[in-house]
């Protein structure tokens, strides 16, 4: 005689009715904590690493200048010449008086271009700057 194990007829499905709710919660989380991508990057760069770094609390005050591996300068959505930096940044400062300029410069760059940009920023009265760097562990 063959023995048959008696099993209770239990439904073996994971209930999925609440899955949309969970996903929506995740979605809400992402919508709240993130900001939309604003610019397309046209230059390639790798940020330097540092330990004593600070967070910029107010993201709305930040304006970026990118400098790529090849030494090209990008502000907003376009590549600009060094001589144009001053007027662009001056306009930015007009609309946003206490702007923080975040310099995202490739770590292989020379100090020459960094100093040139700094001089232009000084002329444009954008005096608060931030050398963007990633945290070193």
């Amino acid at each position: 005689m063959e023995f048959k194990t008696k099993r209770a007829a239990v439904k073996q499905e994971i209930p999925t009715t609440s899955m949309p709710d969970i996903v929506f919660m995740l979605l809400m989380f992402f919508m709240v904590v993130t900001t939309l991508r604003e610019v397309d990057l046209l230059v390639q760069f790798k940020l330097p690493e540092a330990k004593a770094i600070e967070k910029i609390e107010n993201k709305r005050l930040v304006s970026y200048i990118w400098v790529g591996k090849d030494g090209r300068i990008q502000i907003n959505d376009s590549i600009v010449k060094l001589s144009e930096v001053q007027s662009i940044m001056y306009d930015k400062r007009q609309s946003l008086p206490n702007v923080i300029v975040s310099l995202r410069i490739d770590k292989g760059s020379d100090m020459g271009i960094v100093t040139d940009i700094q001089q232009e920023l000084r002329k444009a009265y954008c005096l608060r700057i931030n050398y963007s760097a990633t945290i070193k562990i």
Partner: protein
Amino acid sequence: MALLKKKNVRNVEIPTASQADLAFLLLLFFLVSTIIDVDTGIGLTLPEYVEDIQTVEVPKDRMAAILVNENGDVLVDGTPTSVFQVKDNLKQRIVSKIDLPSNKKLIVSVKTDRKTNYNIYIQVLDQIKQSYFEVRDDYSTANYGSKFKDLSTENQDIVKDKIPIIISLAEPESVKK
């Protein structure tokens, strides 16, 4: 005889099986189109631009002159040091000037060459910032019993007043242009 019309029961529910898929699509869209990274970096305030620069003599013991050349060698007050020693070197000097009035505090001057690598410059700047932060932390723990960032704003201002971060960026030699 009453005619009993047989009503067929209709299913009037909105199908929700695909709702999860829709929500996932939305979620993916947000994941792709947003950035989470927080802006971190070393903050500085540049001096105002003036046409004719007036040179102010600063007494030697107030200055810590750091020079980085194009090979990445670091000179602190004329003696060659490695990048990682800059912090300890400066720390003592900052500590020794805590109780002096504000016009006698240490000024750290960083001078680079036009050909100096940016990464090394950031490393040096990082060392300087670290030394200041550590001194501030030490001072806070000694006087208020907690780290600088945990202090109240008033106490932070007092510590900031005692240990101000003064970094002067010297322009590179224009000869190398």
